[in-house]
């Protein structure tokens, strides 16, 4: 359960209520940032967070995202190499 979607904080809209504008692929919505605020709210602008029911629930850790992606890309590249080799084998078979 719990539909959540990555959004970028683009502006702080209400300091006292801890509200900010978040953007998800061109769609904007005011969200509460209490859960990801550590002191200065302005520092959040530009950051990405997981948005759920109008709340920024968790700041997205770019380094961790990169690590996961790197592992996945590694697998992807290995796959492409394998496929290219298989194609090559097929081509060779065709010439025999």
């Amino acid at each position, binding site marked *: *359960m719990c539909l959540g*979607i990555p959004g970028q904080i683009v502006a702080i809209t209400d300091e006292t209520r801890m509200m900010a504008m978040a953007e998800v692929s*061109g*769609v904007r919505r*005011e969200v509460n940032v209490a859960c990801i605020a550590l002191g200065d709210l302005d520092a959040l602008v530009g950051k990405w967070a997981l948005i759920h029911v109008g709340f920024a629930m968790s700041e997205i850790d770019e380094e961790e995202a990169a690590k996961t992606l790197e592992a996945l890309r590694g697998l992807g590249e290995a796959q492409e190499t394998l496929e290219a080799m298989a194609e090559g084998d097929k081509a060779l078979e065709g010439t025999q």
Partner: protein
Amino acid sequence: MRDARVTLSHGGGGKAMRELIETVFTSVFQPDTMEDQARLMNSALQEPGARLAFTTDSFVVDPVEFPGGDIGKIAVCGTVNDLAVGGAKPLWLSAAFIIEEGTEIALLQRIVASMAAEAEKAGVRIVTGDTKVVGRGSADKVFVTTSGVGVIPPGRRLSADQAQVGDMVLVNGMLGDHGAAILAARGDMALSTEVQSDCAGLGHLMEAVLAAAPNTRAARDATRGGVASVLNEIAEAAGTSIQIQETALPLRAEVKGMCEILGLDPLYLANEGTLVLIVPADEAEAALAAMRALPEGKGAVAIGKICEGPRGRVTMQTLFGGQRIVDMLVGEQLPRIC
């Protein structure tokens, strides 16, 4: 007009009503006669084998004005499109208005102006009409009903049961823009976006397609229920299956974003200017090229094909080759959080 808003006296049959009709409606639509009926002559109708096409549709939309259009534009485009997708050349429309007491006259004037503009673009005339005024709360500002008459030239036959295995499924552009624009404009979810309704008349586009791809089997206007519902109807009528490709679906980033946030499926979002065409494979390229030459078809693409399989089944090949069924919608699509 002296009044800024419609009152019940504008529906009373007296001078006030006459003033409303003349200033707001007939001065803009300019029908040939003020009789209760339009009297129409058309040579195309007299051609042997020509058929009369007749359709009607009621329009309610909240809000009545939204990015990319208003209820008047939809009321003209919707009926023009219902005629066009059946292969008819749209000629005449009627327009009936149920107006809520208290509605701004200026709003009515804007709606009427956009109807007139859209009718002119589509090459149709609004030849007869009616107004009624109801008490506050008995309608939501204004409801519009348009009926349309057109002529189907001899020999032209479009219907979903003609679809054959191997035919291509084409659309003329981005999906779901209208539904997304209305969702944002309604404001309940406090989402804002630049997406505009795709509301457009498709008569000229249909003529261009039929000229380029004369064996086109069927066309549908994917309004309520979205592309998914239309595909299900076609597959049912044709007695075949339809397979579409997820990667081929033309979707605007904002529409995707809105769907991700609210947990909606863009295949079920309403459109007001989106055509689904079934075209023989060897005419598909010609149909696409003809559409891309017009502004309302510049995003035209093939999204799938008619294939063998159980009657009425629509499947989608997902991003990585998985399969899922695209069923008819149950009720309306509700935003969800989980």
